[in-house]
């Protein structure tokens, strides 16, 4: 029998980490909707700084680690650049209202369609797949640019990326589900839609993406539901519209917060809106505008065929009027309604010229 090894002195535990902690004795309690982000906004854990100096990826509320490396070169460290008051709420809603493009769309209801209808639907599906690439890429980039201290806003953007990913796949699936396929790329990722990714500032990006871009696409999804040929398309467009409305809500609430917290930036925001209204909202940048493969596809689907194109175009024009009214009211709700009173916005004038 060998002698027992003397290990004394080799396994002294350094438990000093046990003294390094954030506020203790925290006991978050679930509300009627479960344990939500709103329920854990307790004491210091719920306090967001106006300006963050957190460059180390430290979770908000945790004890700092002296000498730790800077792992993030976060461009967004000022609260009013990204904040919105209902971020926690929107995040929980996004998680709870997820759906599956594989099993929540009744694909079995799709039946063969006339060639012109199938081609128009496939063209639209191709366009949406392109657009959703941009809508997913852009928020993803800004997530990594944002300090962890504003994690609630980051969480909403991450949920948006998941939503856009699902939109990309559901339209790709539709294009391939009924004897058609993808059509020619429309180039939607260039021009104004593509330029969303050139934004150098989060609010600039949000005004283009969430308010102008997604507001326009929301209307198109709703149109998609209206002109659906089967229950599968009906569900697909309706569920996408829900997600899109949540993204629009992010933009409206961020603009409200920004407007109140940094009024000196209001003129700058108006300039972004000038640009958006001249292009994606009322100009040729609007995919629902007259002409082009997407506009023509919409008219064919709304009218019910190539031979009813003019009827479809009249319906499209009527729906675009609604789209403009909703956009205008969203801008008012976001706190920038004076542009419609003081003559700065030429929205309706531009629309009449384009219609």
């Amino acid at each position, binding site marked *: 029998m060998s002698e027992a090894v003397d290990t004394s002195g080799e396994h002294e535990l350094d438990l000093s980490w046990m003294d390094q902690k954030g506020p203790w004795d925290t006991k978050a309690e679930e509300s*009627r*909707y479960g344990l939500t982000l709103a329920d854990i906004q307790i004491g210091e854990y719920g306090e967001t700084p106006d300006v963050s100096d957190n460059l180390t990826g430290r979770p908000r509320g945790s004890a700092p680690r002296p000498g730790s490396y800077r792992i993030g070169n976060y461009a967004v460290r000022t609260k009013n650049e990204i904040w919105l008051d209902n971020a926690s709420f929107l995040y*929980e*809603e996004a998680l*709870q*209202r*997820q*759906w*599956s493009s594989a*099993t*929540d769309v009744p694909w079995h209801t799709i039946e063969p369609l006339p060639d012109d209808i199938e081609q128009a639907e496939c063209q639209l599906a191709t366009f949406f797949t392109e657009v959703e690439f941009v809508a997913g890429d852009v928020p993803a980039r800004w997530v990594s640019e944002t300090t962890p201290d504003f994690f609630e806003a980051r969480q909403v953007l991450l949920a948006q990326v998941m939503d856009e990913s699902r939109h990309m796949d559901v339209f790709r699936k539709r294009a391939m589900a009924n004897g058609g396929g993808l059509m020619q790329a429309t180039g939607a990722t260039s021009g104004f839609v593509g330029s969303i990714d050139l934004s150098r500032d989060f609010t600039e990006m949000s005004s283009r993406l969430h308010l102008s871009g997604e507001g326009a696409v*929301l209307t198109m999804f*709703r*149109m998609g*539901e*209206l002109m*659906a*040929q*089967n*229950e599968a398309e*009906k*569900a697909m467009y*309706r*569920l996408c*519209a*829900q997600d*899109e*409305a*949540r993204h*629009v*809500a992010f933009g*409206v*609430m961020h603009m409200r917060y920004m407007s109140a917290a940094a009024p000196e930036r209001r003129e700058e925001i108006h300039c972004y809106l000038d640009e958006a209204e001249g292009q994606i909202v009322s100009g040729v940048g609007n995919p629902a505008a007259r002409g082009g493969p997407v506009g023509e596809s919409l008219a064919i689907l709304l009218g019910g065929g190539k031979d009813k194109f003019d009827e479809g175009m009249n319906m499209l024009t*009527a*729906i675009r009027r*609604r789209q403009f009214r*909703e956009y205008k*009211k*969203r801008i*008012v*709700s*976001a706190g920038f309604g004076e542009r419609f009173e003081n003559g700065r916005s030429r929205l309706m004038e531009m629309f009449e010229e384009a219609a």
Partner: protein
Amino acid sequence: MAKFPSVRWFDAVREVFNGDESVQGGGGGYCNCIAGMKVGKDVFVLTFEGVECTEAVKADDAALDDVDFYLDMAPADWREMISNIHSNNGADRHHTLNTLDLEREDGLATSHHGDQYREDLFFRYNQTFQYFFNASARIRTDF
């Protein structure tokens, strides 16, 4: 048998809707808003909290000032929609809430306050509202 429109009818639909877990997923789920229903001159206010519709009350026009949005149709149009839902075990392609909204010049969903953020809740929770009215296929309705 519940007569439409009445609190009794909405309560019967609420019972079916609240008891069906399948409508809490698949794009349904948390829905927090106050929605008005205007059936001609009759007004009802529905409260949605979490995954349930928690209350339906009869109200008057003034109550519509406080709802996030309200659905406004003539009694004959409501009857057509509900009958269609009953016949098809859910709205067919021409009778979904979104389709009815876009086919009307002034829309189906509107508000007194004009705040689009609140009106957008109709789009944000549209699948839930569709599930709610589709649940009426499982009750007997009298007009």
